[in-house]
């Protein structure tokens, strides 16, 4: 029972952007994928969500090849928060969240869907925006409303199997407090038996909220393991070109990464 990529290769046009690599995210855990720009993180996410077919290898959801899942059943257990959304029509935030319920009802807008959507807005601290038009929201507010939509999509576990939440840089345009809120929600989702894979740039957020971290560089999986095992000064210097000090504090679950400057500053 997991979402698993086996020796997948992702190509865009004539170029291979990720792979071959293997990776698995299991119910109950938060897996963070980190790596420099262009490492193939978003491509990996697109492959794991079934959006891009892999040129080699395959992605399996609970043991069955992802593309063999009926689309509605897949959508009932696999939800994806994309980096940016292009919604340009004036749905209210509540209506956007209700749209997340679509895979569950042949007719949307029932009372319970509305309640779930409201609860999802509460969970992302956007309940006060419920009746605001999406197009009038700020970037961070939009991202939280989109997260509420994906949470509403995965609100109830499927009759059989687990729920899988894929997040592509969910904290990118959020203020500090909401960055933590979003990752706390991801943790809670995992605690309740869901699986979370999140692409992150902030190593400290990854260290704090992830059970495991996968480091991606040039389309390949460099290292996977616990935050303390993966986030070493050597690995960060080699992968990100950044000099860091890694310290640990007893009151924090993971290591703390302190950037000291670029590894080889330009002359």
């Amino acid at each position, binding site marked *: 029972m997991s979402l698993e990529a086996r020796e997948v290769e992702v190509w865009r046009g004539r170029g291979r952007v990720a792979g071959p690599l293997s990776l698995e995210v299991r119910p109950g855990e938060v897996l963070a994928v980190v790596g420099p720009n262009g490492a193939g993180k978003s491509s990996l996410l697109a492959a794991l969500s079934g959006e891009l077919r892999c040129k080699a290898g395959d992605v399996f959801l609970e043991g069955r090849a992802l593309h063999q899942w009926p689309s509605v059943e897949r959508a009932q257990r696999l939800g994806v928060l994309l980096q940016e959304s292009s919604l340009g029509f004036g*749905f*209210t935030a509540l*209506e956007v969240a209700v749209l997340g319920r679509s895979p569950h009802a042949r007719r949307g807008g029932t009372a319970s869907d509305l309640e779930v959507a409201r609860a999802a807005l509460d969970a992302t601290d956007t309940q006060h925006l419920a009746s605001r038009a999406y197009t009038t929201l700020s970037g961070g507010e939009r991202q939280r409303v989109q997260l509420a939509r994906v949470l509403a999509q995965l609100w109830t576990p499927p009759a059989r199997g687990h729920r899988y939440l894929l997040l592509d840089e969910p904290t990118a345009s959020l203020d500090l407090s909401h960055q933590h809120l979003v990752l706390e929600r991801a943790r809670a989702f995992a605690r309740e038996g869901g699986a979370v894979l999140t692409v992150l740039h902030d190593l400290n957020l990854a260290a704090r909220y992830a059970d495991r971290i996968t480091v991606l560089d040039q389309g390949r999986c460099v290292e996977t393991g616990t935050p303390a095992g993966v986030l070493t000064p050597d690995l960060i210097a080699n992968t990100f070109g950044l000099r860091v000090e890694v310290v640990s504090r007893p009151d924090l679950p993971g290591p703390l990464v302190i950037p000291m400057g670029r590894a080889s500053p330009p002359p």
Partner: protein
Amino acid sequence: MSASEAMPVPAARPVPSRLPGAGPWVTLGGVLALVVLASLAIGTVPVPPSALLGSLWEALGPGEASQRLDPMQRAVLLSLRLPRVVLGVMVGAVLATAGAALQALFRNPLVEPGLLGTSSGAALGAVLAIVLDVTLGTHMGALRMLTVPGAAFCGALGATLLAQRLGSGGGRTDTPRMLLAGVAVSSGAFAGMGLLTQAATDAQLRSITFWSLGSLGGASWETVGVAAVPLLLTLGLLLREARALNLMLLGEREAWHLGVDVERLKRRLILAAALGVGAAVAFTGMIGFVGLLVPALLRMALGPDHRRLLAASALSGASLLLAADLLSRTLAAPSELPVGALTSVLGVPAFIALLARKGAA
């Protein structure tokens, strides 16, 4: 975030968003009913509304022939105005609904069927038939009446499928690319029409001009019967997709992640729109702005939810086209102004106002 048992779902609060009840439907339906009545009553042979209702009731039911309408009024009503109204309602509804659906599909409020090559393809087909004076032979009788509409319909489908083909790659329809392809196909069709009109006789030119500006004047029960099949089919196909269209507004990728088979939806919608708009243009000529303006205005009034927008577009498109038709045959009676020119006359200022308001917002 969570299973509902893990986190209690908060009690429902009053719904703050616009959730219009029966209000809009009463208004839009009432307007349509009024326009239908006016269209039946007003004209060179006036038919008093009271007599009209009684007569319609008797004509539709098994009752006896009305004593209150003279034979002239009765003939005008039943064999001229009624088929014209029925055709107008169907065509207006299809144009507006197709516009609303395509705007959602392309996630662009400025898209209309004309941009996909559908209208211009139909025009090219019709002009070709007029100029070449294609007839199926006098012995084919009723089929002759369908030569120009048939050619227009084929042109509409052909041009739309060509645009879709050009806009597709690797098994998927790339919507921005298809818009570009539609513009190219349209330009090609207009160029073809330009060349053909050079070869046309004066009589053919008048016929082309009249056709290219649209008219409901050709309505008869025969044309209504033929046109009803593709028009009603299209309406049914489009109205079914309201929920999927709502998801498409989120984005193609988002819709896909919510379980929408995006590529098949695109093909279905484009084909349905081509079918309906092709039939509309085939029987009434080019009628602009209904498909662009009606959904845009309704979206501002009712919000973007297609479960309301599509049906509201159908009602309002029917009303707008009938109103324009009523004006077209009364303003300069006994001659008729082209209805496509009137929808544009009504539509362009409203559209400019809409754009200005969007710019100011």
